[in-house]
């Protein structure tokens, strides 16, 4: 039908934009054209997504899954994988987020990257990223989704290392990009293992085929445990959970729009999307669900503690992202799939807003990123300050902004369907979130200026502030899409996604949501802890500024551990990286490559030479010796014939 053709076009527009900007962007000296092409490609995608959404609203819920077969991709023996798109309630939501927020970030980039010599390259990579992300979301089978998965990983690498000749911490931006790619690769190994197992178990890779078959299986089937765990390893890699989160803080080496788009709003949510898509598989493996929830909760708390003491504005936001992703996995792990996706949406709004706002600050402060050298910027950057504040209130979970609804839903589900331990971890993390975010605001925008004279921070141009304003509005009202039953709303968001997660809900034997007193209590507690965080931040960083210093002196070791992110990077370096490098060097290079392979190759040459040296002795140059051999041969042949 025409809608699916449009969807296909929406996927291809960014690819065309990538080819246009990538191939001839360098020749076009006009930044406007490059930016216009890039933004239009994504904007068109957003328009199509809206059309798709409204069309789907007109259809009855059972018929909202639309597919489009494009062409057979791999046909090998019994194995078949096609390039085909599938549009259902879940993917249209993701598509709206990706193209919508993506469009705003493209517009912002036109202003942020102004004057950069690699302007055309940036937009080309951004478009390639959107194309890969859309492929990932709209794929109708695991293999095509994996193609998109790898594509976004590639674009992440290209964009993190965009300023490839810049130093970054102990290495270069290229090192950060490689780290992201390699850590992602480790996760991809898990993902691939999961795909292999799925094919072996179900005989197909198409979502509809696999999930229909899965719906007929019983809870606790062993193979599903391995499949879901393997897929989750992939998700921890892409979505930066324990233990594969180490690449995300380093990914801040890339330009800020990259951090906003890829490492806040879209790519890192690919893991969440994947687990949500496979909800029925997870519902059949309760152990895996427990693992997902635990890892999510632990990551949320862990990252929040680290984010508390960071001094780089983007690092704080990076750990915040890891923490919020933990919330999403916590939701998925307890069976609240739509709550997890709801948080994806709200998080996309406010985290993109926060990152873009930080970009405006960095831009204004001429590439200064240390918040200890900021302060009082609220006066110089009014729009940035106000939108950033909206984003902070949203992420802290203060009603009626969007973060409250999504985060609260997750915490309630964690308590009622999971365990109070999970709830407690999430609750503590929520408090810490409020604390570190308001600390960030206080140190950056409020208080007295701590920057040197001569730096004249000025507000960003309109192309950068407009997206901020739009995102602030979305952060403020986006939560109303999912007002829970307890507050009188019908939770439209959950209802919209319900058919997608129905098979999983069936397996989990979930009862209908009921309104309980406990929910109100928890809601009140969440708000209270958020306000407490705000109050503490105000106290420690504005009024009585000596308290943080006192705390550091009282607990120096704790501070150092937090500041150094629990030394996880050093642990990996020592336990994994160094042995791998050393082992490869000794065993694979010196042992096998030099001793075995080189010896064999050289040996063949030497054998040939030796044989040649031996054989040439037969060429005596004297005819009679040749005749002698002749005669000997004749005698032998005749003799043999006689003996026969």
């Amino acid at each position, binding site marked *: 039908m025409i809608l699916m053709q449009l969807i296909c076009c929406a996927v291809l527009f960014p690819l065309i934009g990538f080819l246009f900007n990538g191939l001839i962007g360098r020749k076009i000296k006009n930044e406007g054209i490059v930016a216009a092409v890039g933004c239009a490609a994504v904007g068109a995608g957003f328009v199509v997504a809206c059309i798709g959404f409204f069309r789907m609203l007109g259809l009855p819920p059972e018929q909202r899954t639309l597919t489009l077969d494009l062409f057979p991709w791999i046909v090998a023996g019994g194995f078949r994988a096609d390039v085909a798109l599938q549009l259902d309630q879940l993917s249209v939501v993701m598509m709206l987020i990706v193209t919508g927020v993506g469009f705003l970030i493209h517009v912002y980039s036109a202003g942020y990257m102004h004057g950069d010599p690699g302007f055309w390259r940036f937009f080309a990579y951004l478009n390639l990223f959107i194309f890969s992300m859309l492929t990932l979301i709209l794929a109708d089978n695991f293999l095509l989704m994996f193609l998109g998965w790898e594509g976004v990983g590639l674009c992440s690498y290209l964009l993190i290392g965009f300023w490839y000749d810049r130093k970054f911490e102990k290495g270069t931006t290229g090192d950060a990009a490689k780290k992201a790619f390699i850590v992602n690769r480790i996760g991809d190994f898990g993902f691939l293992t999961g795909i292999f197992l799925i094919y072996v178990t179900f005989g197909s890779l198409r979502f509809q085929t696999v999930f229909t078959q899965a719906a007929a299986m019983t809870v606790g089937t062993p193979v599903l445990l391995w499949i879901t765990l393997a897929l989750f390893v992939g998700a921890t890699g892409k979505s930066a959970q324990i233990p594969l989160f180490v690449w995300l803080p380093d990914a801040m080496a890339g330009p800020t729009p990259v951090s906003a788009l890829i490492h806040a709003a879209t790519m890192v949510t690919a893991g969440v999307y994947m687990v949500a898509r496979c909800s029925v598989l997870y519902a059949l493996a309760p152990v895996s669900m427990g693992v997902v929830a635990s890892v999510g909760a632990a990551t949320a708390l862990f990252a929040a503690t680290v984010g508390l003491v960071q001094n780089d504005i983007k690092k704080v936001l990076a750990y915040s992202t890891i923490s919020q992703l933990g919330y999403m996995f916590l939701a998925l792990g307890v069976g609240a799939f739509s709550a997890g996706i709801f948080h994806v949406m709200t998080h996309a709004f406010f985290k993109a807003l926060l990152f873009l706002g930080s970009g405006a600050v960095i831009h204004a402060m001429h590439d200064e990123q240390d918040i200890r050298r900021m302060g009082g910027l609220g006066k110089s950057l009014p729009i940035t300050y106000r939108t950033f504040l909206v984003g902070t209130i949203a992420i802290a979970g203060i009603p009626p902004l969007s973060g409250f609804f999504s985060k609260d839903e997750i915490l309630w589900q964690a308590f009622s369907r999971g365990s109070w331990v999970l709830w407690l971890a999430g609750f503590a993390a929520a408090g810490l979130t409020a604390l570190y975010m308001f600390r960030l605001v206080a140190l950056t925008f409020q208080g007295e200026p701590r920057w040197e004279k001569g730096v004249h921070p000025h507000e960003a141009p309109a192309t950068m502030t407009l997206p901020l304003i739009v995102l602030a509005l979305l952060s403020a009202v986006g939560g109303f899409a999912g007002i829970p039953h307890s507050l009188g709303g019908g939770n439209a968001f959950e209802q919209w996604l319900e058919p997608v997660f129905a098979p999983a809900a069936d397996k989990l034997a979930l009862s209908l949501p009921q309104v309980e007193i406990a929910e109100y209590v928890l809601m009140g507690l969440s708000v209270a802890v958020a306000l407490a965080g705000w109050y503490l931040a105000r106290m420690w960083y504005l009024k009585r500024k000596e308290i943080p210093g006192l705390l550091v002196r009282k607990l120096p070791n704790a501070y150092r551990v937090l500041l150094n992110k629990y030394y996880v990077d050093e642990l990996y370096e020592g336990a994994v990286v160094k042995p791998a490098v050393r082992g490869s060097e000794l065993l694979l290079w010196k042992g096998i490559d030099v001793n075995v392979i080189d010896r064999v190759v050289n040996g063949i040459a030497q054998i040939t030479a030796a044989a040649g040296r031996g054989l*040439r*002795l037969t*060429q*005596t*140059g*004297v*005819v*009679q010796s040749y*005749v*002698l051999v002749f*005669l000997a041969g004749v005698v032998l042949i005749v003799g043999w014939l006689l003996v026969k």
Partner: protein
Amino acid sequence: MDIPLPYYLCLSAALFVVGVAGVLTRRNAIVVFMCIELMLNSVNLALIAFSSFLGSITGQALVFFAMAVAAAEAAVGLAIVIAIYRNKQTVDIDAMNILKW
């Protein structure tokens, strides 16, 4: 009593072997050539023997042509020997080993 065919063939074989031994043993090029002629003649003998015993003229015609070819070959071969002698001042076969490794 007639001589049976195998006797002629034995003689032919014996002459052939002597010729081969001569080719392999002697170092003078012309003597080697003469031994080759001996080998050719032994084969002629065998052909004529077959021809007579089978009543077919083909063997004898073949010998005719073999003789003609032997004559031609002798002429050319000796011309070559003369040419070599001009260059190397010797007809010793062991001295003609330019194709040696």
